C-alpha cells in the first residue's frame, strides 16, 4: 500500500490524480457553471463584498512591510529549491518524523490516501474524528471515504462546518463558505445545529458562539484528530498548521491519535525557512499581521499531546506537475488564496464554477495539472490573463504564463488525439497562414470589408454592427462591433506616403 521512494527518483512517475475519487473535477465546463453563478444576484453580492474586504485588508498589511518584495523573492527561491530537491527532502522528512516517534505513510493517490487514513482510524476503534480545515483532505474526498466506512468526520473550522452542515461544497481556499452571507448562515444554524437557541441572531459573534457550543463536546470526546499541514520542515521533522480560530490547536493537541494528510509539496528544507513563510502567509491570506494560532509539532512526546502521530504524504498527480518544467512552480503555492481575492473572474463567477476544490487562478492552473488537462480543459481559459494574481502571489507564481502554457498543452494534445481538427483549430491555422504573408493579409482585410454591409443602415451609419454571424455572435450578444472602415491603415499609408519603407 505504501510506496517508499528510497533508492529511486520520483520524477519518472507521471501519474495524474485518478478519476472517480476526490474533488478535482467538476460536472460541467467553467463557462456553463459560471453562467448559473453569474445569474445569482445574492451570490454576486456576497462575493463582491467578501473579496473586496479581504483584498483591502491584504493591501493594507502588505503595504506596511518594507521588505515585502524581498520576502516574496525569498519565498519563491526557497520553494524553487525545495522542488528541485523534493525526493531527497521527502526522504529526510520521513527519517526525522520517524526518529521523533511518528509514522510516515506514502500515498500514490487519493484512493491510497483514503485507504490508509480509514485503516488508521479503524485501528483506534473510534467511529468519530475531528478535523482541522484541510485542502488535501477535501481534494481526496476523505470525509466521504470515512463515511463509507461508517466513520463520522466533524469539521471544526467555522466556515468548513457551515459547508458541512449545509451539505454544500467549499468555494474558496481560505473561506470555504465565502458564498454565504450571515443571514444565510443564521438560517442554516437554526435549522441544523441541535439544541440551538431559537433566538439566535445573525451577529457574527453569536454565530461563532453557537458553533463553538456545538463543537466543544466533539473536541473533548474525540479520540482521533485529522489535519492537513501548511508546512513540513525536512531537517527537523516538524509539521505546522496556522489558523485563526483555535479549533486547529484543539484538534492537534487533545486527541490521542493525530493523522496529518499532506501534499508532498508542502515542504520547506529547514526550520529557519519558516521565518519567511510565517510572514508571507497571514498577510497574503487573511490580511493579518500574524495569524492567531501557529501550531508546530515534532513526532510524539510522552504525556503531552497525541501519543500516536501518522503523516500521510500524498502525491495524487503532484509528481506529474513536478515533471513539467514550466508548470512546476504551481507546486510553490502555499494556499493563501490572495489570487482568488483579486481575481475579477473569481469575484464574479465564484468558486463552484471551477468544479475543483481549488478555485480561482491557482485552481485554474493546479487542477488541470493534477488531473491531466483533458479532465479540466476549460479551466486554463477561465482567465483574461489580466495578471492581478501574479502581482499578489507571495511566492511569485507566474500564473498568467502557466495558463498560456496549459492552453498550448491542451491545443497540442487535441492536435494529437483528434482525427478532425476543431473549427477553432482550423480558423487559427488559416489565420496563421494568412498572416504569414502581408499580401495574403491584405486580401483578407479587403474581404473583411464585406463587414461594412452587415446590419441595419442606421447602425452602419453610426459605425457599428449590432449582430455578428457565427461564433462571433457571442461578442454581439452584449456589445456592438465596430463597422470596418472604408480604408485600412496600410492602404492609407500607401496612398499618402507612397512606398516609404
Amino acid at each position, binding site marked *: 500500500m505504501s510506496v517508499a521512494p528510497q533508492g529511486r527518483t520520483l520524477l519518472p512517475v507521471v501519474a495524474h490524480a485518478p478519476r472517480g475519487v476526490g474533488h478535482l473535477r467538476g460536472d460541467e465546463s467553467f463557462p456553463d457553471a*459560471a453562467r448559473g453563478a453569474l445569474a445569482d444576484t445574492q451570490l454576486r453580492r456576497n462575493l463582491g463584498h467578501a473579496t473586496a474586504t479581504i483584498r483591502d485588508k491584504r493591501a493594507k498589511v502588505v503595504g506596511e512591510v518594507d521588505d515585502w518584495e524581498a520576502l516574496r523573492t525569498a519565498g519563491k527561491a526557497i520553494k524553487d529549491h525545495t522542488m528541485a530537491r523534493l525526493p531527497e527532502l521527502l526522504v529526510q522528512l520521513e527519517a526525522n518524523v520517524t526518529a521523533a516517534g511518528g509514522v510516515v505513510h506514502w500515498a500514490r493517490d487519493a484512493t491510497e490516501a483514503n485507504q490508509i487514513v480509514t485503516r488508521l482510524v479503524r485501528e483506534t476503534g473510534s467511529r468519530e474524528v475531528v478535523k482541522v480545515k484541510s485542502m488535501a483532505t477535501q481534494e481526496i474526498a476523505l470525509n466521504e471515504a470515512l463515511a463509507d466506512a461508517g466513520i463520522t468526520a466533524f469539521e471544526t473550522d467555522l466556515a468548513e462546518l457551515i459547508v458541512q452542515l449545509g451539505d454544500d461544497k467549499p468555494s474558496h481556499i481560505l473561506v470555504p463558505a465565502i458564498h454565504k452571507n450571515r443571514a444565510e448562515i443564521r438560517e442554516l444554524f437554526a435549522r441544523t445545529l441541535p439544541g440551538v437557541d431559537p433566538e439566535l441572531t445573525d451577529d457574527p459573534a453569536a454565530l461563532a458562539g453557537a458553533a463553538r457550543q456545538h463543537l466543544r463536546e466533539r473536541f473533548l470526546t474525540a479520540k482521533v484528530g485529522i489535519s492537513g499541514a501548511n508546512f513540513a520542515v525536512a531537517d527537523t521533522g516538524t509539521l505546522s498548521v496556522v489558523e485563526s480560530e483555535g479549533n486547529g490547536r484543539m484538534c492537534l493537541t487533545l486527541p490521542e491519535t493525530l493523522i496529518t494528510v499532506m501534499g508532498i509539496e508542502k515542504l520547506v528544507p529547514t526550520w529557519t525557512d519558516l521565518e519567511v513563510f510565517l510572514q508571507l502567509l497571514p498577510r497574503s491570506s487573511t490580511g493579518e499581521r500574524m495569524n492567531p494560532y501557529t501550531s508546530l509539532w515534532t513526532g510524539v512526546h510522552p504525556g503531552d499531546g497525541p501519543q500516536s502521530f501518522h503523516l500521510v504524504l500524498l502525491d495524487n498527480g503532484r509528481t506529474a506537475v513536478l515533471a513539467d518544467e514550466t508548470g512546476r512552480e504551481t507546486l510553490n503555492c502555499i494556499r493563501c488564496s490572495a489570487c482568488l481575492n483579486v481575481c*475579477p473572474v473569481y469575484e464574479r463567477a465564484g468558486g463552484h464554477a471551477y468544479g475543483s476544490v481549488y478555485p480561482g487562478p491557482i485552481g485554474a492552473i493546479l487542477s488541470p495539472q493534477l488531473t491531466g488537462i483533458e479532465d479540466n480543459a476549460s479551466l486554463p481559459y477561465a482567465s*483574461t490573463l489580466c*495578471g492581478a494574481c501574479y502581482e499578489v502571489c507571495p511566492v511569485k507564481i507566474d500564473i498568467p*504564463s502557466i495558463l498560456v502554457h496549459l492552453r498550448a498543452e491542451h491545443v497540442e494534445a487535441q492536435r494529437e488525439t483528434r482525427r478532425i481538427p476543431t473549427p477553432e483549430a482550423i480558423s487559427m491555422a488559416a489565420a496563421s497562414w494568412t*498572416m504569414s504573408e502581408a499580401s495574403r493579409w491584405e486580401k483578407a482585410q479587403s474581404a473583411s470589408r464585406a463587414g461594412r454591409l452587415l446590419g441595419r443602415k442606421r447602425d452602419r451609419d453610426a459605425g457599428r454592427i449590432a449582430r455578428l454571424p457565427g461564433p462571433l455572435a457571442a461578442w454581439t450578444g*452584449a*456589445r456592438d*462591433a465596430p463597422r*470596418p472602415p472604408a480604408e485600412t491603415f496600410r492602404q492609407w499609408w500607401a496612398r499618402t506616403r507612397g512606398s516609404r519603407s
Partner: protein
Amino acid sequence: MTDRPRVALLVTCLADTLFPDVGKASVSVLERLGCEVMFPAAQTCCGQAHINTGYQRDALPLVRGFVETFERFDAVVAPSGSCVGSVRHQHAIVARRFGDEALAQRAESLAARTYELSEYLVDVLGVTDVGASYPHTVTYHPTCHSLRMLGVGDKPLALLQAVHGLQLVELPAAEECCGFGGTFAVKNADTSTAMLADKMSAVLTTGAEVCAASDSSCLMHIGGGLSRLKTGVRTVHLAEILASTEDVPAGVA
C-alpha cells in the same frame, strides 16, 4: 535627417484593419515630436491571439515574421500594451517551445527595443507635453497588459495631464480588468459581460464624455458595451487624444 529618431510603427493587426485612426494618430504624434516614422509593409500580426488561445505552433511563423520584419530598426513602437507585452514576454517562449534558440535570442534582442507608445514618448523621447489639445472630460482605463506586463505605471496619465484643455477624472477601480481577454470575450462571454458591466458602471460614475485607454482591443470591448447601451460615452485611444491639436482636432492629418 539622420539625427532624427527613426521608429518603425507596429500598427497592430487590429488597428490596421478596424481602427486605422489609431495608427494615423500614432504617426502624427511621433512625427510632431520629430521622429522619422517608418511603416514596414511586411508586418501583419504579433501572434498574441494565437499564443493566448494556445496555438503557439501557429504563432511561430508570425513571431518569425515579426522578427524578420522589424529587426533592422532601432526602435519599434506600437499603440498597444498587449501586443508589446506579447513581443516582450512571449515571443522568445514560443521560439524555444519549438526548439528555435536562435530565433528566441533574436526575439529577445528586438523585444528590448520594442515600446508601447506612452513608454516611447516618456522614457525614450523624454516628453510628457506632446503639444496636444483636447477640450473634453476624459477618464482613463489602464489596460492590464500595459499596467502589469509592461509596468507603464502612470506614464499615460502624465501624458494626458499635459494635454491642453483636457479634464482628467479618476476612474474608480481603474486597475480592474475590463473583461476583454481576447478569445475570453467569446469563450467566456457571460463572465466577460459581467466584468464589462462593472467597468461601464465605473466609467459612467465619473461623468466623463470619453473613456480612453492604450489598447484598441479593450476599447473595442468597452466601447462596444457603451454603444450597445446608448450611454453617450465614447471610447478613444490615447494616441488619438495625443494627436489632437487646436488646428486639427481630430488629430489626423
